[in-house]
């Protein structure tokens, strides 16, 4: 099938924004001459020039600091982490400087921090992580996790235009795995507002709340369950900060049973946070336990069999849904 891939959508959104606004610049390791480790920025150096497409040394802390400084000077930098795992090296820059700037000094830091996240490509514990919760826990930074081609484009444009730091997590397994025809992209808004969840499938028996690549696991499971007469509603959060809790609450109040699915590890994960919100605000609407389906609390394994066991699979969702449905 021809069509626009998830990777192409990210690339196109950045391209459009750099065309639209000359203050948008790009920096990171190998983003220029090499075109990015995953070729997301191939062609950018030739088109926009070395002044706006900047290859940096291998120093995440250094170039994140540079981006924050540049933002203070009026630019709108996009910072690429070759693998998002390495944002850990820039942790202080992101959490202490970028996230707190507006609170400390009144100065917004309009930067986008982006990079490939997630597992399923046999890349092991340093190149497969889902670090969102470090930043969800840090007030002052928005976190978006596109799961579809249209959202990859729309959330990137929204992130670049935002006046505050946005962490944009792109799932490396989706890069060339999902496509949408250009016509269907042309038919929807090219900017997706940050903080709005999306109901990807209407249902009446169980609400399944998820985000990122797990959306596709959820939708596959919903197909199987539909044949058994279990009707899943699937919500893609799209943004973790700010969280569209009204969307989730509305669905839970209507459907009364809920499962929370993510690829990130369990303890301190987004599912736990949403479970707490539901327990506080929708306790009387629950007709069964709040069910979490997550990776276990271990690093991402190398071995294919172990990585498959680590990442929630379609069958895990199906089994959990059967149990909850019968509850």
């Amino acid at each position, binding site marked *: 099938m021809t069509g626009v891939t998830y990777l192409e959508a990210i690339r196109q959104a950045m391209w459009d924004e750099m065309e639209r606004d000359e203050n948008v610049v790009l920096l990171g390791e190998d983003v220029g001459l090499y075109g990015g480790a995953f070729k997301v920025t191939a062609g950018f150096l030739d088109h926009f020039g070395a002044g706006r497409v900047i290859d940096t040394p291998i120093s995440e802390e250094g170039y994140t600091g540079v981006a924050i400084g540049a933002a203070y000077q009026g630019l709108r930098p996009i910072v690429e982490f070759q693998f998002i795992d390495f944002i850990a090296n820039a942790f202080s820059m992101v959490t202490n400087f970028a996230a707190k700037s507006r609170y400390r000094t009144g100065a917004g830091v309009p930067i986008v921090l982006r990079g490939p996240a997630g597992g399923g490509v046999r890349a092991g514990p340093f190149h497969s992580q889902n670090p969102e919760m470090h930043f969800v826990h840090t007030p002052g930074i928005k976190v978006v996790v596109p799961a579809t081609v249209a959202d990859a484009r729309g959330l990137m444009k929204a992130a670049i235009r935002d006046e505050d730091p946005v962490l944009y997590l792109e799932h490396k397994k989706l890069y060339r795995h999902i496509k949408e025809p250009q016509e269907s992209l042309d038919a929807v808004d090219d900017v997706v507002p940050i903080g709005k969840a999306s109901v990807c499938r209407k249902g009446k028996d169980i609400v399944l709340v998820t985000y990122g690549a797990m959306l596709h696991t959820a939708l596959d499971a919903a197909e199987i369950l539909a044949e058994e007469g279990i009707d899943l509603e699937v919500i893609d959060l799209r943004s973790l900060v700010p969280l569209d809790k009204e969307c989730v609450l509305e669905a839970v109040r209507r459907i009364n049973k809920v499962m929370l699915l993510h690829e990130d590890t369990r303890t301190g994960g987004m599912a736990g946070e949403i479970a707490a919100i539901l327990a506080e605000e929708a306790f009387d*609407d*629950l007709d069964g336990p709040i069910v979490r389906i997550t990776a276990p609390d271990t690093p991402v394994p190398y071995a294919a069999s172990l990585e498959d066991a680590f990442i929630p699979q379609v069958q895990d969702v199906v089994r959990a849904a059967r*149990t909850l449905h*019968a509850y």
Partner: protein
Amino acid sequence: MTEVIMPQMGESIAEGTITKWFKVLGDVVERDEPLLEISTDKVDTEIPAPDSGVLSEIRVPEGETVPINTVLAVIGGEVSDVAPAAATPEVEAPVAPEPTPPATTPAAAAPSSSPSAGLRSSPLVRKMAAEQGVDLSLVNGTGRGGRISKKDLLDHLETRNAAPAPRPQPSAPAPTPSASVAAEAPSPALSSGDRVTVEPMTKMRKSIAEHMIVSRRTSAHVTTVFEADVTRIVQLRAENKALFARDGVRLTYTPFFVRAVVGALGTFPLLNASIDGDSIVYHKDVNIGIAVALDGGLIVPVIHRANEKSFLGLARAVNDVGERARTKKLTMDDVQGGTFTLTNPGPYGGLFGTPIINQPEVAILGLGGIHKRPVVVNDGIAVRSMVYLALSFDHRLIDGALGDQFMADVKKRLENWDEKIL
């Protein structure tokens, strides 16, 4: 051929419930693939297939509880043509037969809160039940371990709303949906403000309201009032109180009245009957309901087979049901199956009341207060302990003459008490 057995999930576990079969008859299963899910007192767990092959027999359907080591299914045999396991009668869990209540329909005047205790549901179901005035002990739970789910409650509501009358009464005026007005009353139009306070009825209040209205619509109430001289009984009680107390029994007047009524019911069995359509149902057991006032309501526990009890046994039973009514320890059986009810409107000085029949019974006796009064005895005036007894009966079945003959018999038994009570 490999048998799938109910495993022992812990030392103290004797049985388990099948909550879900993941496979159907004829499916090919792989060894170690999840085959079914079971629920025990301690854990819920998936049971993997012990072998690969065709699932040729499912012997225990979903929802059944069976002892450990029971064969649940067979893998690798011939697939039989018999209907799926759900219809196989011989493997149904041994369920104790429902004790057949003497009345054709159980007549719980006001469900106690205790039958609901231990029911499993969910926050949502409890909220909906409170809003809809549903007694959850009447809802059939189909969830895991008999849990009541939203669907179960909705099914129950659908059934209830389709048939609002508590029981078919072809000979009675057709019950209208408003018979259950109390349970389905719309939200009050008023809300709390300066001059009124509005609060929702409790479950018990709604239930009483519903039962009272249904009884008024069902029976043709007539009340007859007799006066009895119970001086002898007042003396007997005073003389024997201490002796009974030694046996741990608080001797009240109630067992005397129960005794007299039970005797009279033996003579006039129609007062111990009920109506079922165009038929009269005579009950061989005499099960006496005793109305007990509670905070914000009342309940009628039943002394079953009161005709088979000694006086001491009756006195003890009266104490027991009263105590358990007040401490909310009655079971469903305790409030079902009554054939005649005693109520006691006298303790605050009332002379007599005109009680409402406890359906589907046909008569109820109200005991007034016992008061000393000047009474003409042998053309002289004596001070005697007197009581008014008011019998409400269902004129559909009992005519005035019969009601009065019954009351005359009760009166005679009370006034000429000659039984040793200890």
